[in-house]
């Protein structure tokens, strides 16, 4: 009964989306607008119905209703409750329902809260929103019905991929989806503003919180996903340049560029066409991301819910939305007036540099990700992997960091480098010293890690400079947000450079009682014993890690899951302030002499990568909070703050 109610709610919600589209369009066409009073209520209803449908599905997973196909094929009666619930979105249909639900609730929120743009633009935005939602409803109802019944109902269910049975699943996909959905809202705003010729600061201020929120979620989603892969896959890698990872990175890159350009538009009324363009690209990238992930068209280590036919459906949706949007863009761009002028050396110039470098990185990642498809179409089966992406993107990232050292210190419109020459000299000195010290400490380190460390040290100082000369208590929160996010970049890049330049690895085989050494740590395998979990059994190694008289116990496991049958390794991580000791126990060694294969890594400052990611998201959250707070108090005036 619950399943049927959920399905009915989805159909009704689709009808509401249609009403939203038609009502908004008639108003735009200058009609009598009899349907117009229905647009906002339709948005509220759509949000409520979709939320209901999602919670209905969650309920079905909660009670493990095996007469529902989706539950039967993705859950199991013996699964721990948290994974039963998280299993709601750990599969294709459920994750699409989550997407649609978040999108509809956001649409309702726009209808309810957005009061600062012209009513006409708001209705146009809601119409576009309804149009996008319709496509996704069609996809859900015709190609991936989450509420389909299964007759007869099985007794226990097929289970969930063991790699996914982790707290990461509870957080990772929803955060990424919130990000994607936020970008779809930005897209709706952009097309709405194009349709009503309202591309200006008011539109930018209305769109900005959505871009910012989307960007925060994407940042958290990517950082969390990276850490999850790092400890779950058991080989200590944290970024593989895998198609699915790239699929989440590309919208993030576009959103980061958009976030900066929308601030320029909101404050200085410049970069108009460029901001609209980025909003379209950002949404296209999130759809492309979903397509790449869901279609399985590219081989990926993270591909868990793959179906080529559905991929084709999403591809069709993406092509339809983006081509319509770009046609509107092409038709209307002539009417978007040129923004305010500025010079090369200016805050705007710095943000243009940021946008250029981010777009170049985005283009390289996109080409590298799709290249194997193109080559295959021409009859060549080739792979494009980490060696290419690192060589092609890292130099641009380093340039981006260089721009980040200077940009935030510049004034709007026009500035002179001479004005900040002492800061520039200071920055160059830190760069040089940092690079030299790192090179002296570890000769033979690659160029990229060296430059990464030097630049991140300089940025760790430079990030705080926008606060100089300000009364801290009276500084707007968004400035703090910017400073913290930029400092987070320095922290994260430092972690990446340190990990890729200075990691140590020991691969060995140990019998209980034997030990191995790595980076000053002595690791003794003291015991190996079997352990039983809810739906797995494991071999657990007990290791004693010793350094400078401090001793720690580590318990890596090699797990064997039953439903479905699968082997995974659960690494043991020992976190110190300056890095992590990463230990894995694998199979018994081949000679049958009672030894176990053991892999050990010392990864200096590796945790900084995700800690920095957290700071970046925190900076965004502070900025968003400050903005909402200020907006609640008084209407915004045309004064600049960073996004």
């Amino acid at each position, binding site marked *: 009964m619950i399943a049927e109610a959920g399905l009915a709610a989805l159909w009704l919600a689709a009808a509401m989306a249609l009403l939203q589209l038609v009502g908004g369009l008639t108003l735009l066409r200058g009609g009598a607008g009899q349907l117009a009073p229905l647009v906002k209520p339709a948005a509220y209803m759509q949000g409520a119905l979709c939320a209901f449908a999602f919670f209905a599905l969650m309920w079905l997973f909660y009670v493990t209703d095996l007469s529902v196909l989706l539950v039967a094929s993705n859950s199991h009666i013996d699964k721990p409750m948290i994974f039963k619930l998280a299993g709601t979105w750990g599969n294709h249909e459920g994750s699409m329902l989550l997407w649609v639900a978040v999108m509809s609730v956001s649409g309702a929120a726009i209808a309810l809260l957005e009061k600062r743009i012209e009513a006409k633009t708001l209705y146009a935005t809601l119409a576009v929103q309804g149009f996008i939602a319709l496509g996704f409803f069609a996809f859900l109802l015709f190609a991936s019905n989450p509420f389909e019944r299964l007759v007869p109902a099985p007794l226990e269910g097929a289970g969930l991929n063991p790699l996914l049975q982790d707290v990461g699943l509870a957080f990772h996909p929803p955060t990424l989806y919130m990000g994607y959905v936020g970008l779809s809202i930005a897209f709706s705003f952009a097309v709405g503003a194009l349709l009503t010729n309202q591309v200006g600061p008011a539109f930018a201020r209305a769109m900005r919180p959505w871009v910012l929120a989307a960007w925060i979620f994407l940042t958290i989603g990517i950082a969390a996903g990276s850490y999850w892969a790092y400890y779950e896959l058991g080989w200590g890698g944290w970024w*593989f340049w895998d198609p699915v990872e790239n699929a989440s990175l590309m919208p993030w890159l576009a959103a980061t560029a958009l976030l900066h350009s929308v601030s320029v538009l909101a404050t200085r009324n410049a970069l108009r066409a460029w901001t609209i363009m980025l909003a379209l690209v950002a949404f296209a990238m999130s759809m492309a991301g979903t397509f790449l992930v869901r279609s399985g068209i590219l081989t990926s280590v993270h591909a868990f819910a793959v179906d080529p036919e559905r991929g084709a459906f999403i591809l069709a949706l993406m092509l339809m939305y983006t081509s319509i949007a770009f046609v509107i863009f092409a038709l209307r761009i002539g009417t978007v007036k040129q923004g305010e002028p500025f010079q090369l050396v200016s805050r705007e110039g710095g943000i243009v540099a940021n946008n250029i470098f981010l777009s*170049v990185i985005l283009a390289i990642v996109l080409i590298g990700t799709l290249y194997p498809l193109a080559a295959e179409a021409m009859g060549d089966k*080739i*792979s494009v992997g980490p060696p290419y992406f690192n060589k092609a993107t890292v130099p641009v990232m380093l340039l981006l960091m260089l721009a980040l050292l200077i940009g935030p210190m510049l004034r709007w419109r026009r500035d002179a480098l001479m004005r900040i020459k002492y800061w520039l000299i200071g920055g160059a000195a830190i760069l040089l010293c940092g690079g030299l010290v790192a090179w002296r400490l570890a000769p033979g380190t690659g160029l990229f890690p060296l430059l990464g460390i030097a630049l991140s040290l300089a940025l760790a100082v430079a990030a705080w400079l926008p606060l100089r000369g300000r009364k801290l208590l009276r500084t707007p929160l968004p400035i703090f947000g910017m400073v913290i996010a930029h400092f987070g970049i320095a922290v994260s890049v430092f972690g990446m450079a340190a990990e890729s330049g200075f990691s140590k690895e020991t691969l060995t085989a140990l019998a209980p009682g034997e030990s191995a050494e790595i980076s000053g740590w002595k690791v003794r395998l003291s015991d190996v014993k079997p352990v039983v979990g809810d739906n797995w059994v494991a071999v657990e190694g007990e290791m004693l890690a010793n350094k400078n008289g401090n001793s720690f116990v580590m318990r890596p496991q090699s797990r064997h899951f039953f439903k479905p049958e699968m082997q995974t390794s659960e690494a043991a991580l020992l976190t110190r302030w300056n890095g992590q000791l990463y230990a894995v126990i694998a199979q*018994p060694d081949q000679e049958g002499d009672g030894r176990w294969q053991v892999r050990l890594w010392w990864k200096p400052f590796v945790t900084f990568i995700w800690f920095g990611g957290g700071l970046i998201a925190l900076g965004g959250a502070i900025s968003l909070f400050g903005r909402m707070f200020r907006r609640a108090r008084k209407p915004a005036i045309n004064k600049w703050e960073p996004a």
Partner: protein
Amino acid sequence: MRAWVPILLMLAAPAFAQGSGPTPALANRQLADPAQEAEAMRLMHSLRCIQCQGQSIADSDAAMAETMRAEVRQQIAAGQKPQDIRSWMIDRYGEWVSFEPDIKGSGLLLWIAPFLIFFAAIWLARGLFRRRT
């Protein structure tokens, strides 16, 4: 007590689970010379485990990846150049195995693309400033 049976089975399982016989010695053991090992590691990170889903042979537990790791370490130890080993792998498994396409043939455009994009972007931006100052 019942739960122990699968554990006991499992402890014995790896002995015949691989099917392709025992794992080659160098699959999960480092070379004695750190320089050679570093060279081998770099190469292993740029070779695809063709049995897996997009992992390099340096970070996979698959039997195929183990065989290939052992092969790389053996050849490095025997003094082979990484580039020759890569060619050897490509001869055996096709271009698909290399994560780093050659700067020729179908891979040429891929390596030129970043430069093209970069200069196109700078050129576009120059137009932006010239118009506006």
